[in-house]
């Protein structure tokens, strides 16, 4: 097994762990963290393909990863803000108890 494959397998495993967390946890904040883990797995793929690609001096994978990290940071800030607003409204972060759209 080549080392690019091992990085890709690790990234797939990280993605699956994040997906399992996002699908099974009841706390909304932990679901958001699961989504962050999936984004991290994608970043690891970008960097691995950049490193093993034909022209690493063109910095394409690094740029992709930097912009992807920025988007993930913005997403985390807005997501946690939405969770706080929902908590103020329904006094819970348990997703199984947030079952009405109309307050």
């Amino acid at each position, binding site marked *: 097994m080549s080392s690019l494959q091992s990085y890709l397998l690790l990234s*797939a495993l990280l993605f*699956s762990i994040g997906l399992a967390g996002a699908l099974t946890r009841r*706390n909304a904040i932990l679901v958001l963290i699961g989504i962050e883990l999936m984004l991290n797995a994608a970043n690891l793929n970008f960097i691995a393909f950049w*490193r093993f690609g034909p022209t690493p001096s063109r910095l394409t994978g*690094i*740029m992709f*990863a930097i912009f992807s990290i*920025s988007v993930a*940071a913005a997403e985390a800030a807005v997501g946690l803000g939405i969770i*706080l607003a929902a908590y103020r409204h329904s006094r819970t972060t348990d997703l199984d108890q947030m079952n009405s759209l109309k307050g």
Partner: protein
Amino acid sequence: MTVSFLILAILTVAGTAAAMGLRNAVHCVLALTVGFAGVAALYLQLGAQFVGFTQIMVYVGAVAILAVFAIMMTHTPTPVQLPAYSPHWFWGGIVAAAVFAVLAWAIRSGTASAQALPPQPDINVQQIGDALMHRYVLPLEIMGLLLTAALIGAVVIAMDRKEEPK
């Protein structure tokens, strides 16, 4: 596959699996910082120093702290311990395992197997700054706009509005 990769991979997977599996939410975020630091060390191992330190600053420094703050602000002591997992956790695990199986099959049967590790590219921060200021200046400006909008939007959404008198 080297020994350092194996150690970092085990550390990363153990940290993230604990982050998604533990019951106490604060413990989950602490385990998550270990996982994020492991991913940052993998970036350093691949020769992407700038991305590795960005990962440490953004994820370990900002996102994890933000998550801890959110968990502490939304902590409600309940007389009955609520279950940490959804009642359909079994199917969620099955779906995640199936996704991993498909991805692993695609990776194993793909054509990426013959790649040898190319020589370490000589990348420094000055080259990254040059690229950001010349070739990627428009994405950089758009990212600045997006971050500003996200900052203002997060504050507006999370702000505690008093009801206006009618």
